[in-house]
């Protein structure tokens, strides 16, 4: 993914628009939910009818402060709204209510990990704004239609400094940011549905240079992969252009996911003058220290802290902790399994193996929060308990697990119904071992002649003969005692 830029280095800054998970819109009482029939979630205010006025949804400010505190931003005790003026059919007032000179959060940083190294990426600012409606083309003959359900859905715009240098760093930053907003409960982080959107500012310069190169803004990427690919494409295009003696122009380019290339949309000459000015319909936002402290007290445990706790409290390897805390719902699922049965490493192995595989297969992680788990946490815990108390082997557990996916029965009930209880009777196992050795005298001779890898063969034969129910450590112990006798 990371292109070799030779004598150049990439300079990448990201602008993320995160739709907030408030129940209602930012300046009216309409539902902010996704997926309603077109224009159902609208009223005179979010349609920009004549004379109507915005009234701020306080929750939006709380969410913004939550994000700012989690990212170590300075929270502006006085900030204000500005109007961004331009014409587009999905923009109902001819201006977007946003923040310009005095945003609610400034500064802050995220630490990202790429190739075993940690890098600190600083943020420029976070501000609040309203989303626009959505134009729908090609659905109604020659006409375009507009759906204003999204008009007035609250957004956080999170702007990084141009401090990333590769697609991998950009991807890591973006994933980290998404995890964070999901943990904070302020955004569902769904890139496909557009509730978590990213534009990239990409430029290149000679390695070691301090001046920034000509900046290109890349838009229209609707997955992490698309962001990484678009940045990789753009870095290569820019370095190729320079190497061929060409000139780069400051412009906006669109990522075409089908053709895997960026295309020019508009150049700086045709760029808008947005004529920002303070919105006279909304008073400045004054935040008291009490309010900010209250939000700070109510912050949930953040991903970094949780990851460290998973290592220190559960003794998990760093890699496990990283995977399990990548999603708040996954981390909570893990904790629920461990709470029901105290074997963190086993829980981690099951989740990182079968559970995550099924989540991907069933696309369960398309939902903002996974609720339809392949198996309930307590059920998975019960299965692990059956292994730990010696009722079943790990191998049998796989069979039981598959059964659990389609059955309402408890793991124990499945084990009993199918007669899968582990054979731990030494005498019975010894008898099977004797039969197996007796049936394979040549192999026994080979083993004793030094071909010790035949151990696996004998174990396999014993397991086969017991229908997989023999206790594997016991089989090994008794088998070796016999063979080496």
């Amino acid at each position, binding site marked *: 993914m990371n292109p070799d830029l030779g004598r150049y280095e990439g300079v990448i800054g990201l602008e993320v628009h995160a739709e907030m998970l408030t129940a209602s819109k930012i300046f009216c009482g309409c539902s902010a939910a996704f997926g309603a029939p077109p224009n159902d979630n609208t009223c005179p205010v979010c*349609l920009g009818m*004549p004379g109507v006025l915005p009234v701020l949804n306080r929750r939006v400010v709380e969410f913004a402060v939550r994000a700012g505190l989690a990212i170590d931003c300075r929270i502006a005790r006085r900030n204000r709204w500005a109007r961004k003026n331009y014409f587009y059919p999905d923009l109902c007032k001819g201006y977007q209510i946003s923040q310009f000179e005095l945003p609610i959060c400034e500064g802050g940083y995220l630490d990202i990990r790429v190739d075993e190294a940690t890098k600190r990426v600083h943020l420029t600012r976070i501000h609040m704004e309203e989303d626009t409606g959505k134009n729908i083309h090609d659905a109604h003959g020659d006409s375009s239609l507009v759906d204003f359900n999204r008009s007035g859905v609250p957004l956080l715009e999170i702007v990084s400094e141009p401090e990333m240098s590769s697609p991998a760093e950009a991807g890591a930053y973006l994933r980290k940011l998404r995890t964070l907003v999901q943990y904070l409960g302020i955004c569902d982080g769904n890139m496909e549905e557009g509730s978590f959107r990213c534009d990239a500012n990409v430029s290149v310069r000679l390695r070691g240079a301090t001046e920034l190169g000509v900046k290109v803004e890349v838009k229209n990427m609707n997955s992490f992969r698309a962001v990484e690919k678009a940045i990789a494409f753009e870095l290569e295009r820019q370095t190729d252009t320079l190497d061929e003696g060409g000139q780069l122009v400051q412009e906006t380019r669109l990522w075409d996911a089908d053709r895997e290339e960026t295309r020019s949309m508009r150049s700086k000459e045709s760029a808008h003058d947005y004529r920002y000015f303070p919105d006279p319909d909304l008073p400045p936002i004054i935040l008291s220290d009490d309010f900010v402290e209250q939000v700070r007290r109510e912050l949930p445990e953040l991903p970094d802290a949780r990851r460290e706790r998973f290592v220190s409290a559960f003794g998990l390897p760093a890699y496990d902790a990283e995977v399990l805390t990548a999603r708040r719902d996954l981390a909570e699922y893990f904790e629920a399994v461990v709470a029901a049965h105290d074997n963190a490493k086993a829980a981690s192995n099951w989740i990182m193996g079968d559970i995550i595989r099924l989540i991907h297969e069933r696309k369960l992680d398309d939902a903002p929060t996974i609720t339809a788990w392949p198996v309930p946490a307590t059920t998975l815990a019960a299965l692990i308990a059956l292994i730990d108390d010696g009722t079943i082997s790990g191998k049998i557990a796989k069979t039981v697990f598959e059964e659990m996916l389609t059955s309402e029965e408890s793991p124990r009930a499945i084990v009993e119904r199918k007669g899968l209880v582990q054979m731990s009777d030494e005498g019975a196992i010894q008898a099977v071992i004797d039969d197996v050795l007796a049936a394979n005298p040549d192999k026994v001779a080979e083993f004793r002649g030094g071909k010790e890898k035949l151990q696996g063969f004998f174990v396999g034969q014993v397991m086969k003969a017991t229908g997989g129910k023999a206790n594997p450590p016991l089989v090994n112990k008794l088998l070796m005692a016999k063979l080496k006798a």
Partner: protein
Amino acid sequence: MTTPLHDLTLAEASARLRDGSVSSEALTEAALARIAATDETLHSFITVSADEARATARAVDAQLKSGAATGALAGIPIAVKDVIATAGIRTTAASKLLEDFVPPYDATVTTRLKNAGAVIIGKANCDEFAMGSSNENSAYGPARNPWDPTRVPGGSSGGSATAIAGRQAYGSLGTDTGGSIRLPASYCGVVGMKPTYGRVSRYGVIAYASSLDQVGPFGRTVEDCARVLGVIAGHDPRDSTSVDRPVPDYQAALGTDAAGLRIGVPNEYFIEGMQPAVEGAVRDALGTLGGLGATTSEVSLPHTAYAVACYYILATAEASSNLGRYDGIRYGARQPADDGLASLYRNTRALGFGPEVKRRIMLGTYALSAGYYDAYYLKAQKVRTLIRQDFDRVFADVDVLATPVAPTTAFHLAEKTSDPLAMYLVDVFTNPASLAGLPAIVVPCGRDEAGMPIGLQLIGPPFGEELVLRAARAFEQATTWHRDRPPEPAGAPA
């Protein structure tokens, strides 16, 4: 009955409704008849909502009979400026672009009028989007001054003033951004009041300049205005700039004397070239107030001269943004796109907006543009602060300020239409109080040599509505100017 119904003041009509000697239906029919007889000349209305008015009147009459109607304006026909949204009744803002626009919602002031039992008789003419000082910018033709129909009624709330002066309604609502209530009140010889910014909700009031717009009443008397103000004032959770503060009993504030009232007279409001009759009438009024127990003193508001420039930068800047929504996409008269999306906007706005609206959009767009913002918009904001501080300073020593409303009385139609700057300068004495967000009332205080009315402006400190009402009422009670009525328009029954 010696007094025709249409000649009653709001207070008189209200008293007779309550003693049962007249019905709301009768008042409404009288108003409708009066409109039918006189509006061809005055053109106070863009839309007369006769059916809705009759239905409301009948309903209120039934409530009055049963004793259920207790609202302060129960049964009273009221005209509403056509920039104020009225659910189910078209609201054009005097613009061609909104010719067929019927809002599905009421402005908060409309709701409050309805809740008080008022009968909305029609939508009053005004300058397009409230932009103008003469009502000549209405896409539906100008309203005319009842005292001389060859003259303008003043703007932008011209129709709201002529409806009162012409006895077509008992009260009316206007909006005042830079003088749009006070100037027509002065030119038409009626009482008009701009409340403190934030006193009355702007929700549903089609915005011209959001930081300045304020709804206010017109009436034949100060008392009538106080009644209407009491109904429309108050905090509205739907307007974040409305102020959460109790509404006093404005009628109780009306006295008959001005004892102890300290009146400041800003010398910057008496300027070279103003009509001598205007200065004379205002000076006489000061004498009258002195006779009622007020003390008068000269004060200075040194930044007054910058108010017009400051106002026309800030108001047009806000307007250029406020009018962005009239793009023909969701409502309003859309013109065809002959050359892509941009042409849809271009054609819709080129044909939908009149020349003064376009001029202000261009002025405001310029003032906010990259490279000019600091020199114009930001500078004007600073000047606005200085103007506000001027007022803060003098209100430490005086209770109200008394000034002329405009340098001259009503001018003739078309007299200033070719000279926008001359038109803007008409606002020289009204813009400062707008920029400072202050309450101000206009009461008739004389007539010039041509018989045209002259108004006295009384400006109060923030939320000093009671002070200006008291001063205005005292002056009114000591004079007869408010009882003068304009000549009957040709064709009108006496």
